[in-house]
């Protein structure tokens, strides 16, 4: 059954005011186009979850879609701060932002617990750190088999919606990823509703030729959106490079609310969809981000008829 939808329809049907939304992707495969559509449809009061809130959440939080952030590291990687997020945390400008923070491993295991239907996940972290003192959901616990062996547990995270980008999927949502995997699989299995966004929708036979590369099965996917360059300025391994210049430029744009607002007007509200965003940058921009090919070797699965 085809689950192919436009980004506009997928966001309209699956993302609701007040939802907990996770747009994951660790540097790689961050679906900016979905964030832009959520801004454009003016969702409000979202709880945004993400290991590494970076420029995408600075844009969304700057645009006022969220009231809470769940995270483990916030920043503009390799550049510095998230100015819009910081304004809200440090000065409640223009409104306060509630935060709930973990470490990376803690966030990964929250998704693991959520995806595995477990009540909590034990990890060896947070010892002698102040993090549990500011987050009561991180709880020390003794091993039932050895009282002296103490771990910390984190609660499951089951977002209402996960939005994950993948290189390709078939129309049913069976999605394949290569390169950095982030938490795409874990968040997709943990979420109640899942939007998979891909560079290319391919025939089912393409997926079946290399099943080890399938990270998310269509069984947990609600909508498949084909949206080339949807990760920009993040990247899709083998398709386009990270646009590091944009990350640098964002530092200047987000520094003042006025320049951020002007950017949103020009690049989000002023466009009706991501295809217009791609067109506005122009072909030369995308040509400059295309990598040389580096093909994987082939493996022989064997035919057992």
């Amino acid at each position, binding site marked *: 059954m085809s689950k192919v939808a436009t980004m506009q329809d997928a966001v309209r049907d699956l993302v609701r005011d007040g939802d907990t939304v996770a747009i994951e992707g*660790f540097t790689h495969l961050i679906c900016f186009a979905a964030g832009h559509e959520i801004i454009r449809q003016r969702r409000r009061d979202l709880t945004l979850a993400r290991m590494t809130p970076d420029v995408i959440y600075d844009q969304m939080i700057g645009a006022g879609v969220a009231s809470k952030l769940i995270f483990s590291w*916030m920043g503009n990687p390799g550049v510095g701060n998230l100015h819009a997020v*910081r304004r809200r945390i440090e000065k409640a400008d223009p409104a306060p932002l509630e935060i709930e923070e973990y*470490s990376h491993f803690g966030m*990964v295991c929250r998704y693991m617990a959520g995806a595995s239907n477990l009540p909590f996940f034990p990890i060896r972290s947070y010892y002698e750190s102040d993090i549990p003192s500011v987050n009561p959901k991180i709880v020390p616990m003794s091993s039932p088999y050895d009282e002296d062996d103490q771990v910390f547990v984190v609660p499951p995270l089951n977002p209402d919606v996960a939005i994950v980008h993948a290189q390709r999927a078939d129309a049913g949502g069976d999605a394949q990823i290569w390169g*950095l995997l982030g938490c795409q699989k874990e968040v997709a299995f943990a979420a109640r509703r899942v939007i998979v966004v891909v560079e290319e929708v391919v025939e089912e036979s393409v997926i079946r030729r290399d099943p080890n590369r399938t990270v998310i099965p269509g069984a947990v996917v609600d909508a498949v959106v084909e949206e080339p360059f949807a990760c920009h300025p993040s990247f899709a391994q083998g398709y386009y490079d*990270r646009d*590091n210049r944009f990350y640098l430029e964002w530092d200047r744009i987000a520094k003042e609310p006025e320049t951020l607002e002007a950017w949103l007007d020009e690049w989000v509200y002023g466009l009706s969809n991501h295809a217009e965003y791609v067109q506005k940058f122009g072909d030369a921009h995308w040509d400059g981000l295309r990598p040389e090919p580096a093909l994987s070797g082939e493996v022989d699965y064997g035919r057992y008829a």
Partner: protein
Amino acid sequence: MSEAGADLGYTKAELMIAASARQLGGVSNCFVGVGLPNIVCNLAQRTVAPDLQLVYESGVFGARPERLPLSIGDPTLATGSTAVTSMFDLFAFYLQAGLIDVAFLGGAQIDRHGNLNTTVIGDYADPKVRLPGSGGACEIAIHARQILVIMRQAQRSFVERLDFRTSPGHSGDPAHDAARGWHGGGPSSVVTDLATYGFDDATGEMTLRTLHPGVRLDDVRDNMGWEPRIASDLDETRPPSEEELGLIREELDPGGVYTK
């Protein structure tokens, strides 16, 4: 403070990189951070540690970057690497289970026992400056067998008391530290733009080991929030060699992004 570095034919960053890379001799699996640590590890791989496996928290084991990565998730880290793992595998099987020999950390604040703050300046509930937070630093500090710190030194960063302890260092009580039962042995060295430090076995206290060429003891004192313990054999930091400078300038950071 001396600005003589340039006259000596190298920058402060180049000195920090060379001094840190020499500490990786014989190391196998190293958790790399972005920026200076990345150049340090790549330099060590070409000099004192040819078998060094570069591990990135983004899920890459055995990276062979063909260009200087500008983030820990740069696509050049995946292409040609030994393995790309899920982040759960990386943190659980590689880090938590004790496979990582050395990791680099830094922070906005460090105290005399190598505890680090990357979370907040001021009060947590009413922050003066909200910093990025832990990321993987908290568990890296606990599980990597040795922590190397690289950071610039100043009164506001080398503090008597942290505003927030994100990542644990030494406690100040070696008996307590020995009983922790963690893989991590805590920080073993700190390299700054002024000096290098080790940690005293008996007290877990940061100990001044070498002063960079042209730096005076008073420069170090003026740029930290406590009176430093000083090694009895205080020495001068060995400047970067021709070979090290050549590799840094021609191969590792030809654009001078991190080393100018």
